[in-house]
């Protein structure tokens, strides 16, 4: 082999002849440091001031664990629901032309634009035991507002556009011929969707899931109105952080934040690796 000597363990990918590599890399690093890295390391720094025993005590506190479970659990359920229905919404928007399609398309973005507190209040009014939907569900024994179910609904509302907007462009690129060829080979509609179309969309769906999930974990505004915020039952981790802050217990607040940060980072990293793997395979 006549490849370059493998002296360095790794190296930069050879930059192209188009100039600006050094400048843009420098700018990106400086920007990321300023906007993301410095605040986050400040967070870690503050929580490190606690000392290991105190940190561990806070991390293993029942209330903290419950809050984290609720935050990550509801975000996971909401993102999963959004993956299914978001993909269907995207499908309808891409595949069918119907009167009002543009309006529906624009409506998908509303959760992006709406102040989250407004969404929270609206949902609470709707799902409260005396609200429109809540009063219909109450006789069935289903309580939405002031329970984790309410949190899930708020997070579904918040997360939907993330899935739709990541899946939609990829769906638009699907070649009609691929579906036609599957049909000539004898695949029925269901088989075509399950074996041909969805696997092609998988990377986009995973991205949409990751975004909706990450957003759900961090969501505060819309959730606190509908959640009821009962400690151990429907108290989310961001709220617990705010509560600790209001108690001037900055160390505990940053400790919980650091745990959330670590968990989110690991999950997003895993999702990213899955994507890189699938992209390498399918090009």
């Amino acid at each position, binding site marked *: 082999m006549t490849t370059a000597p493998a002296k360095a363990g790794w190296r930069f990918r050879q930059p192209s002849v188009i100039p600006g590599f050094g400048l843009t890399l420098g700018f990106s690093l400086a920007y990321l440091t300023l906007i993301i890295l410095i605040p986050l390391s400040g967070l870690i720094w503050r929580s490190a001031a606690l000392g290991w025993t105190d940190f561990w005590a806070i991390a293993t506190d029942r209330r903290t664990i419950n809050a984290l479970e609720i935050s990550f659990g509801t975000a996971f359920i909401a993102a999963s629901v959004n993956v299914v229905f978001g993909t269907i919404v995207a499908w309808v928007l891409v595949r069918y032309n119907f009167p009002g399609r543009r309006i529906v398309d624009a409506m998908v973005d509303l959760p992006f634009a709406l102040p989250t507190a407004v969404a929270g209040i609206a949902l609470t009014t709707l799902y409260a035991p005396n609200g429109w939907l809540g009063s219909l569900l109450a006789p069935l024994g289903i309580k939405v507002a002031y329970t984790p179910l309410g949190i899930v609904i708020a997070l579904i509302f918040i997360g939907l556009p993330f899935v739709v907007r990541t899946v939609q462009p990829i769906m638009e690129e699907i*070649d009609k*011929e*691929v579906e*036609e*060829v*599957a*049909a*000539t*080979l*004898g*695949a*029925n509609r269901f*088989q075509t969707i399950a*074996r*041909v179309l969805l*696997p*092609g969309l*998988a990377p986009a769906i995973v991205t949409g899931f990751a975004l909706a999930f990450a957003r759900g974990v961090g969501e505060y505004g819309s959730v606190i109105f509908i959640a009821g915020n009962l400690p151990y039952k429907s108290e989310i981790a961001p709220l617990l952080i705010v509560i600790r802050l209001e108690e001037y217990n900055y160390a505990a607040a940053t400790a919980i934040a650091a745990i959330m940060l670590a968990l989110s980072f690991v999950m997003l990293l895993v999702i990213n690796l899955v994507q890189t793997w*699938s992209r390498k*395979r*399918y*090009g």
Partner: protein
Amino acid sequence: MEVRVANVRKEFERFPALHDVSLDIKSGELIALLGPSGSGKTTLLRLIAGLERPTKGKIFFGEEDASQKSIQERNVGFVFQHYALFRHMTVADNIGFGLKVRHGPSRPSAQEIRRRASELLDLVQLSGLEKRYPAQLSGGQRQRVALARAMAIEPAVLLLDEPFGALDAQVRRELRRWLRDIHDATGHTTVFVTHDQEEALELADRVVVMSQGSIEQVGTADEIYDTPNSPFVYGFIGESSALPVKVEDGQVWIADRPIGLSAPHAPQGEATLFFRPHDVDLVDECNGCIAGTVAASRRVAGTRRVELEIGGERQRVEIELPVDHPAAQKSRVAFRPRRWKLFPAP
């Protein structure tokens, strides 16, 4: 399997793409649908596949009326110009797809499907690439995989839509010969669409020439080239020159001079004379010939192509001369077509 297209008409939103087309395809035949863009050749192919439904008329596979069947039931192998491979599947999975989606007893075992896939890969000369993904193959290789995938279901008829259109010239020539070999080996009834006449004439048992939604002529390469039955076919297939002429008293006239061609059966009146540029005799003295002033002369590969201006109307025609022929130096050339055909003026 025999395929019969019977009086098929197809409209897209009131716009007719095919007018009353009928065509018989024999079992085991290799047929080319040839025509310019918009001639309806791809529409006809898609109708046979069931990817479109005819507005009127029927399509028979053998004795069965296939127009009533869904695409899935027709059992056709379709190959697209841009391959349409499943990106997320390996080559072997692509080829085995048609067998895997079958239900019940007609579905072979996983092992059998794998065996079949590698057998087909051998046939298309891509042995050993089972585990590759389409993104890792060249264009020519992808098209071979697409063909193997279509053949895996033992199709009643194999339909290819501009199969070599996206490939470069050399790969194209190579695949053309290779497709002929595969056809001879497997004997699938095959219909392919092309706008490349060389491809159609070289490859097909019979060529269907189409124009503006109708079939102009069906025949072997020899028939199409030697006895074109319409001005369109004469102009579309191969090189041709055309001159406006007049038929009177069984003679062909240009302006007020007979050109030495007798046409006893042609109808009197205005007509168009067609001939091949290379199919002419040069004459020295002109008593009954076509004579013209040399307007341009170009060297094309092994011959010289001379453009002549004929008569007062200065109609331009092309003839072909041997490279070293002295006539190319002259300012005036006289010739008589060796083989020619008259079509009444439109």
